[in-house]
């Protein structure tokens, strides 16, 4: 019931916003209230979930199409709890940011944002293959319009590439869903057995690789992240990309143990190559969003390395890193938005020297940047270290690449921090550009506080996500 409420509440709120003509502020207020209620509901769910027992909990199941074995089945595993947690927090921050900057056509905007949040949550709790597919597809509808209507000047080509890539992936997945469901006689992820069909596995894997995105299927990323409204880019990189992680964890590994094992080498090599390649691109990117976008892609490569390490360490590292990266990337994108608002551009060449007379901005950017570059002691460091240790068994070379990735992360993050804050004031930085306002702090500080909390106690996530029964679900099939 609680799980259903978590995914239905934002959808219902979206319908209300779309139908009832509320004034501007009331619309935004209602949207933010819904997002905060979601956070509250998630806290209730997290406290009710028995992490010691693990396994599928807080589940609901109802027949939908009996003859085909399609059902509405939702529920939480340990790792879904944490992924949903990141989702609701990031959406609350993103909607708050939109409220603060103000968006035209607010009713449509907030309705779509809330609908998107419902779809993301549904993806993370779906325990039926078809329900998962529906939620996965449903994310694209609001994203398409959010980027296409409220995006930057090149938004139309951004939506086009986004849709072509993701739909190509999704439709491959549809073929796989049909093939898997029909051969198994049920679409339930709980009841269905395993399959050793490489083609079906590939359909899923490619869809997730596009969504993540993994090298070399990342063609949609630069335009989409640059042209989307900044809070939509935050949501996209922070949580929408994590649906791919969930897909790997919940579908690819447990349902296709043999193909996963056979193709692990290929995935690992691509993920490692993507990690290095994206890090280099981030280092070379001429603008703020480019850096954050490519760093996000690098992190997804890293997380995939953890997933395909096939052991407790790698998997829990991957989940921890997913949660930490969601929060880091959301804060980075929101900060990018705040800088862009002040300077009117994100070109690194025109920025600089913003630390002078803006101590709060400098502090916040520095902290977020430090966590993003995985300074030892941070949650991201813990995640990356777990992945590094986990993937060692698959080959020491992968660990070396992860280590290289950490070094490269330091390089590009420090470059961007100094390009914003230090060096000479750039032409776009006006003297009177203000420091961070209270409202902006209200958005970023909670995210950073959560990150600092996670840095103090990363085991909260890593030891309670893919361990116990949940680990069995993923790993048992592989052994």
């Amino acid at each position: 019931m609680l799980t259903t409420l978590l995914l239905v509440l934002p959808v219902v709120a979206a319908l209300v916003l779309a139908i009832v003509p509320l004034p501007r502020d009331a619309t935004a207020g209602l949207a933010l209230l819904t997002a905060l209620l979601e956070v509250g509901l998630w806290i209730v769910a997290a406290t009710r979930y028995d992490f010691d027992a693990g396994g599928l909990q807080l589940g609901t199941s109802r027949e939908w199409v009996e003859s085909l074995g399609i059902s509405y089945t939702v529920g939480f595993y340990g790792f879904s709890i944490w992924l949903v947690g990141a989702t609701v927090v990031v959406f609350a921050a993103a909607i708050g940011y939109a409220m603060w900057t103000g968006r035209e056509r607010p009713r449509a905007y907030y309705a779509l944002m809330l609908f998107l949040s419902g779809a993301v949550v549904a993806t993370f709790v779906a325990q039926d293959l078809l329900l998962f597919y529906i939620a996965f597809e449903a994310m694209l509808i609001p994203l398409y319009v959010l980027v296409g209507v409220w995006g930057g000047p090149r938004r139309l080509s951004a939506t086009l590439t986004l849709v072509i890539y993701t739909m190509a992936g999704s439709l491959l997945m549809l073929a796989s869903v049909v093939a898997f469901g029909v051969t198994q006689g049920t679409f339930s992820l709980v009841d269905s057995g395993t399959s050793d069909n490489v083609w079906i596995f590939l359909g899923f894997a490619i869809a997730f690789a596009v969504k993540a995105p993994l090298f070399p299927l990342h063609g949609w990323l630069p335009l989409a992240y640059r042209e989307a409204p900044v809070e939509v880019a935050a949501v996209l990189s922070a949580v929408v990309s994590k649906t791919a992680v969930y897909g790997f964890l919940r579908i690819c590994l447990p349902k296709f143990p043999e193909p996963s094992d056979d193709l692990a080498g290929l995935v690992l090599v691509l993920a490692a190559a993507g990690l290095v390649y994206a890090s280099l691109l981030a280092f070379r990117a001429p603008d703020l969003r480019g850096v954050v976008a490519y760093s996000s892609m690098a992190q997804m490569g890293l997380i995939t390395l953890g997933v395909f390490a096939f052991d407790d360490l790698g998997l829990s590292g991957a989940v921890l890193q997913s949660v930490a990266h969601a929060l880091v990337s959301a804060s980075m994108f929101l900060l990018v938005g705040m800088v862009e608002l002040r300077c009117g551009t994100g070109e690194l060449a025109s920025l600089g020297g913003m630390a002078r007379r803006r101590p709060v901005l400098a502090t916040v950017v520095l902290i977020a940047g430090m966590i993003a570059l995985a300074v030892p002691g941070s949650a991201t460091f813990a995640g990356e270290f777990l992945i590094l240790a986990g993937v060692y068994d698959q080959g020491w070379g992968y660990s070396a690449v992860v280590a290289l990735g950490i070094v490269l992360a330091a390089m590009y993050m420090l470059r961007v921090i100094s390009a914003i804050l230090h060096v000479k004031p750039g032409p776009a930085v006006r003297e009177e550009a203000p420091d961070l306002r209270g409202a902006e702090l209200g958005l970023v500080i909670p995210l950073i506080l959560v990150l600092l909390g996670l840095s103090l106690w990363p085991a909260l996530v890593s030891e309670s996500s893919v361990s116990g029964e949940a680990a069995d679900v993923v790993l048992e099939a592989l052994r």
Partner: protein
Amino acid sequence: MIDTPSVDWLALSPTLALLAGAAIALLAAVLVPDWMKKAITAAASLAGFAVAAVLSGVVFDQSPTPEVLLQGTLARDQLAALAQLVIAVTGAAVVLVSWFERERQGSGEYYALLAVAGAGMAFFVSAEDLMTLFLGLEWFSLCLYILVAVDRERETSLEAGLKYLIVGGFGSAVLLFGSALVYGATGELSFGAIASAQTQDDAFLLAGLAMILAGLAFKVSAAPFHMWTPDVYQGSPTSVTAFMSAATKTAAFVAMLRLLVTAFPEQSDVWTIAVAVLAAISLVWGNLAALAQRNLKRLLAYSSISHAGFMLMAVAANSEFGGEALLYYLVPYSAMSVGAFGVVAARERELGKAATLESLAGLGWERPYYGIALWTFMLGMAGFPLTGGMFGKLFVLSAAYDAGDWWLVILGVVATAVSLAYYLNVVRWLYMRSGAGLRLAPAGGSPPRDTALGVAVAACVVVTVGSFFFVQPILDAAADAASSLPF
């Protein structure tokens, strides 16, 4: 005392109700004063469709086991009843769409013809022998020839009427010739008797089968027998296009399924391949050609060809599940099709010219209601979740996969990917292009209020979305209907 055959009036009641509606409309066209002529004729035909819908529901309920009536010429079963229900509801929606259409001469005849065409389709779907099949086909086709050309002062309408007459007449002739060959080979007209005639390798029979299939393929507008579709869809009055795209397809597909499964089970290894090939060509051609269209009605016409491809996939599966998939598919498809043409009609009336992609610019923001409706229909046709279109595609693909046509599954998936380009292009014009520069609407004033059309579009949205959430009841009905065929 002469023995009169006992007539099952209930089985015929949907057809008779529509004929009665048409008769009242025709009488009213003569007897009623001009100012209320349109309202009364429209109401009569609406009532005819509504009563037919209710009666076909009753027949569905009362016919758990299929029966053959009138010396094996007509079937009374749940398949026919379900198809009649879909046709009747579609017809009612079309009457609503055309309610506030521009005054035309002879609106009484227009509504009467609509009801008679509906009656012909209701008869056609229950045809159980080659004679009644041809009779039903001609019955509704003749009405449609006139309906297409009903806007006499518009050249495109006349041109469309002529094209449809010639191509449609050719299609009917092919079907008739095929029937003659089949009769020659088996000496039987009734489907069941043809099946039991045991002449499987007869060249005449196979040639006849091929020609009948081609004749029906004209009606479902499957490529390569689709050439008339874009021109006729574009030229007809939009409400007639809506009726043809939904009701004609439903009728022709149900008749095709019944004919192939009942009369030619022995030849199934031949016709499944033929139908699969037709499906493949329709998918490829419909989707590629739709990419190039600027005119909305042409775009929807090519999209309907690609939908025909999907439905043919279900027929080609030659299984009970395939039948279910086809019948399920028809429900959201009819709703989306009528709804989309309804929105096109609304835009045409507002702007006073043919609706192109450009004329949609900004519609989503100016007329949020029609915008969201058209958005829903486009996503539904593309097979997005939260619309019945997704389950339709899923069932059809599953049926094809079950039948071993994995290459059709892949083709269907690729076709869907291509179709997104033009469906989402419509959405893009709705929301992401500004109409400010195009000066579309005549300055000043809002469009005329058109409640009937609004209601019809709303009903279509409800069916489109409702068939997603309430799959099981529709699928149950489709399963009952499919089980009346001897798979």
